[in-house]
């Protein structure tokens, strides 16, 4: 347990020493928020944004989005790089267990996503007059599940992708596609046909719905079990494919 705490603390410091990663995780969501806020304002319209104001819609969506960016980009890139450099091999030879290595990554993903989400919320609520969550416990639970899901997916990517370059490229691509069609970009109502279908299949789509359930009391559909399923499936696959070198 001491080891896990030490590993988490160290990984957290390593994360903060990468200026670009920090910028990506903490500042980019704010930029997207301002752009979307500037374009759409926060007037509710019946036919888009599930009938709520754009900013009301986006704030919980962006909480999911930041977890996705840390989990799908930072985590796998760092993990693959550690394998490439032989850091994981070094850990293994010194009997640092896999659960500590992976646990540290997941813990960092949680902490960074949480900080990023709190920054986002504390800016968005006063600036765009977004109401607080309808149910704080449900939002906290949603955040925990969503962060866990993207961590598990990230660990899976980090486990199967051969290099940090590959991990970064694929991570950014997945994240960007999900941003565009997964309900954190254009309103889902305007995505029709194939785009809409693909969008509905992305993990982010369901993560957004789960968080909007707690925040706006909008119908989550099957999103909770779907996100839980993604977590479970990714974690199982990650355990199967985890490699030290």
């Amino acid at each position, binding site marked *: 347990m*001491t*080891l896990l705490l*030490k*590993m988490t603390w*160290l990984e957290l*410091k*390593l994360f903060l*020493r*990468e200026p670009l990663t920090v910028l990506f995780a903490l500042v980019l969501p704010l930029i997207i928020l301002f752009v979307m806020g500037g374009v759409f304002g926060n007037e509710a319209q019946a036919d888009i944004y599930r009938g709520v104001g754009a900013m009301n819609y986006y704030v919980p969506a962006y909480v999911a989005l930041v977890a996705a960016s840390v989990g799908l980009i930072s985590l796998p890139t760092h993990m693959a*790089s*550690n394998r490439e*450099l*032989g*850091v994981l*091999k*070094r850990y*293994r*030879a*010194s*009997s*640092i*267990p896999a659960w500590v290595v992976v646990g540290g990554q997941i813990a960092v993903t949680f902490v960074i996503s949480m900080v990023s989400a709190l920054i986002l919320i504390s800016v968005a609520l006063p600036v765009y007059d977004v109401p607080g969550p309808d149910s704080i416990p449900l939002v906290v639970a949603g955040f925990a599940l969503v962060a866990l899901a993207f961590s598990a997916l990230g660990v899976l990517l980090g486990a199967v992708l051969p290099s940090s370059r590959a991990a970064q490229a694929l991570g950014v691509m997945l994240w960007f596609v999900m941003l565009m069609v997964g309900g954190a970009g254009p309103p889902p109502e305007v995505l029709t046909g194939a785009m809409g279908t693909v969008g509905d299949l992305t993990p982010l789509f369901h993560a957004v719905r789960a968080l909007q359930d707690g925040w706006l009391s909008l119908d989550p559909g099957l999103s909770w079990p779907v996100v839980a399923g993604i977590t479970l499936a990714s974690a199982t696959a990650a355990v199967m494919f985890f490699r*030290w070198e």
Partner: protein
Amino acid sequence: MAVSPVEVSHLVKRYGDFTAVRDISFQVEEGEIFGILGPNGSGKTTTVESLQGLRGIDGGEVRVLGFDPSTQAAELRRHIGSQLQESALPDRVKVWEALDLFGSISEAGPSWQRLLDEWGLGEKKDARFGSLSGGQQQRLFVALALVNDPEVVFLDEMTTGLDPASRRVAWELIRRIRERGTTVVLVTHFMEEAETLCDRLIVVSGGTVVAEGTPSALIDRHGGGVKVKFTLDGEDTAWLSTVPHVTGWDRERNRYEVRGEGPVLTYVASALLDHGMAPSDLRQERATLEDVFLALTSEDGGSP
């Protein structure tokens, strides 16, 4: 009788169709520096990584400190230290952070603050791994290998990539590890390193052991004898052939070259004195481990 810390018998390891280790057996005695010498691709690294449970094995038996690395790796690794080839730390990790992390793996072992000073890293405490020189990185790896106070330390090509001065510093470090009472298994392809450091060694080629012994025994056995050279002006020296351990001699004008084996130098010196001769440049030229190595690992290898 004490059990050898490392016992390997008939180790076999394949990667797909490629047999990296065909048949390797050896024993390491407590407190010695044991060398595994061989050209690139001869199976050295595979062997030591198998000993640490980092590679599964396909045949033979391995015991390290009584543990079977393929089934008791976790337990074994608490008692061994390791410096691996092709392993690094994240560039941005600081020296003290790495020592602190690895130090918290086990209760045993010296504090990382002590290791920091012991291995001359005190000034580099807050330096990032990526900013360290090759020699400093090696010292950090050695300190990390010792953080759990291991009984056996495996060092794999520790000095590869170091300049000659840093290499000598590294040798000093290796001696210091042994002085702590730790057994050292050293993988290297530098002959000079093996000759200077190792108490005993094996030479590995093509996945098998081609020679085993102390460096000087290997030189005696496979080095093609000893040459004694001196300069002497125009005397009758036919008696040289009768000196014990001499196998032949030549002279070119006043320069003599006497071939022999074992203690031939001492006998030649004594015989020279008996004949009232005292050349001032009497010297011995002995094969080095490098000559032995090249002879053993060349194409037709094996025969001395």
